[in-house]
């Protein structure tokens, strides 16, 4: 069992937890993730390591409530325990040798991008961050990004805060104005990453994407997390949990990834409603 040391709501659907897991805290690097189960009948879900405190033995995770499991997790309070917590999994992001980087995060993807931005800042790189949200109410981690970015642009789809538009718009403007980067790193909804990659391609800037397919074991055993890369005209199967989650955005077959990510949407809607009803009953 793993203890929740602290809990903080970042907005009404995004929560940050600090979990006591000393072995993971000692090892985790930016870009890696953990897999957890809330209780004994729970599903295994992957969440990115959003920060660690090796001395305290704690690991920070930030999650958005999207379905049954994240809803359950959101009901675990400070001082309570979750059943399983395993990691760090995946390959750490490659950050060496980068001097000027643009981080493009979307929604809860910003939580996944934050440790990468912080690590690059620590390494002395010049960091531009573009973080995008649907509207003002769900903007998260703005202060944290400000602290580690040389330049920060916050966008909202509806213009209720910051730049009006999606994340690719200010990116395009910057690149058109002659700005250049060693690399663009993008994390968010698949469709957003696809368009960021297309923009990067136009200007010949390398682009890393962080893929978040459905996972079970996270160790390369089930193959459920597989995706297809186009490498030199050949289609190559990779497992995101061990070969990734970071991949060269130029190579990823986004359309396939998008289709696979909604494989269980009907079931999930049902599971979510079931969990919500359970909690409602408890409250009554």
């Amino acid at each position: 069992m793993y203890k929740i040391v602290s809990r903080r709501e970042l907005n009404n659907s995004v929560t940050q937890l600090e979990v006591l897991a000393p072995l993971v805290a000692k090892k985790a690097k930016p870009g890696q993730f953990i897999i957890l189960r809330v209780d004994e009948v729970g599903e295994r879900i992957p969440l990115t390591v959003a920060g660690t405190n090796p001395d305290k033995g704690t690991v920070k995770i930030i999650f958005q409530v999207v379905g049954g499991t994240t809803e359950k997790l959101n009901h675990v309070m400070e001082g309570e325990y979750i059943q399983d917590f395993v990691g760090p999994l995946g390959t750490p992001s490659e950050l060496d040798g980068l001097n000027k980087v643009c981080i493009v995060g979307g929604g809860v993807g910003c939580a996944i991008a934050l440790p990468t931005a912080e690590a690059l800042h620590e390494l002395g790189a010049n960091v531009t961050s573009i973080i995008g949200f649907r509207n003002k109410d769900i903007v998260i981690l703005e202060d944290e990004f400000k602290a580690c970015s040389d330049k920060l642009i916050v966008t909202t789809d509806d213009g209720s805060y910051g730049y009006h538009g999606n994340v690719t718009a200010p990116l395009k403007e910057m690149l058109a104005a002659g700005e250049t980067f060693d690399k663009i790193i993008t994390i968010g909804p698949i469709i957003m990453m696809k368009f960021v990659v297309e923009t990067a391609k136009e200007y010949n800037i390398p682009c890393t994407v962080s893929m978040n397919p459905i996972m079970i074991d996270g160790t390369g055993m089930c193959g459920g997390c597989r995706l297809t890369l186009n490498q030199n005209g050949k289609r190559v199967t990779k497992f995101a949990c061990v070969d990734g989650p970071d991949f060269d955005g130029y190579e990823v077959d986004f359309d396939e990834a998008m289709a696979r990510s909604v494989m269980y949407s009907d079931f999930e809607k049902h599971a979510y409603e079931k969990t919500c009803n359970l909690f409602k009953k408890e409250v009554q």
Partner: protein
Amino acid sequence: MAIIPNKNPMPVLDAKLRSTNFEEVALGYSESTAVAEAERCINCRNKPCVAACPVNIQIPEFIMKVKDRDFEGAYQIISESSSLPAVCGRVCPQETQCEGKCTLGIRFEPVAIGRLERFVADYHLKNAKEDPVKPESNGKKVAVVGSGPAGLTCAGDLAKKGYDVTVYEALHMAGGVLVYGIPEFRLPIDIVTKEVEVLKKLGVKVETNVVIGKTLTIDELLDDMGFEAVFIGSGAGLPNFMNIPGEGLKGVYSANEYLTRANLMKAYSEDADTPISKGGKVAVVGGGNVAMDAARTALRLGADKVYIVYRRSMEELPARAEEVEHAIEEGIDFRLLNNPVEILGYNNPEDRRDPKNGCVVGIKCIKMQLGEPDENGRRRPVPIEGSEFILDVDTVVMAIGTSPNPLIKDTTEGLEVNRWGGIIVNEENLTSREGVYAGGDVVTGAATVISAMGAGKVAAQGIDDYLSNK
């Protein structure tokens, strides 16, 4: 005394009934049937059955005890050689091992050794009152990586010798393939958990949620954590795909994913949070135990029709005979001498957002014929040109084999592996690294429970010799 030509039949659940639930299919012998079966054994002097058992269980000796109704005595004899008889009695491919060499089998049916072994083990699990006593510690620490049959056996043997053993398991539950792969209708999870409980009583510590190579490395275990030896029993869990077009479609699973969702994550139960495709038509590609398990699981999840697509013929099916029999009884449709060439998906060019886009609608196969025998004497299947046809299916499960996971190899310097990633060991199961032993599927590639167990035993002996002389 006249020889009774046939085995006492195993009582089983009705095929119609069982194909809708996950209850164990084979119900086990009663005491009287077990004694009657034991009486068939002619107690051969040269005991060919013993030599054909990978761990050399003293078969006639234990069978004689069954005949005398000393079931606990029979258990003691088996447990001298095997630590998982309740498992092996159920899942060993007896027809190619012990029973395959039984003298009776030359003219009649062999003695049902596996069924007797299962009976004895179940009797013990049900009736044994005494807890195993924790042996006196010798103060030496050994780490075991992986809690499949290889790891559990090695841990048990070492604990009995007084070692302080810790098993590290990547998943949230101990048991390896026995809990995530082999379905409950063949091997109830209960039986495995009970075996793990016995180990715990012997003092073995089981740490789940630890991935060696990620959470901790082999070198950390040896250098920083005080372990004097390590056994690697991490199995062969990396699923192979065929690399044909369409394997990325929605509804294509590796058997590992399909079975893990169904078994470990209990997707068949209404209470589970883990989803799986249920119903419809399912094609399982492959012909081994894994394929049979996936096909019969699909049926139990509510499929209307389940095919086994295998490129050779019935004779070459590598699965246990009993499982093939049960699968046929349950109505699995065997499409033999067929090989998939492409998986076909739904595509609605009018509406890119149609949720059916990218879902499996069929599998294109080519018919095969058996050609000349290859170097192993197996007749090689060759495609018949122009014979392609399409099977309409909604789900495809790939059960075409697995290989060792590279995680440990990649994070352990100096650990030598062969061309396909199997760890190289000597006759004591020692690897190229001092104090590091390995065995089971991670060395041999996907094999059997009993051979993994045997490898765990050999390594335990090797580790004991090494640490006693150190």
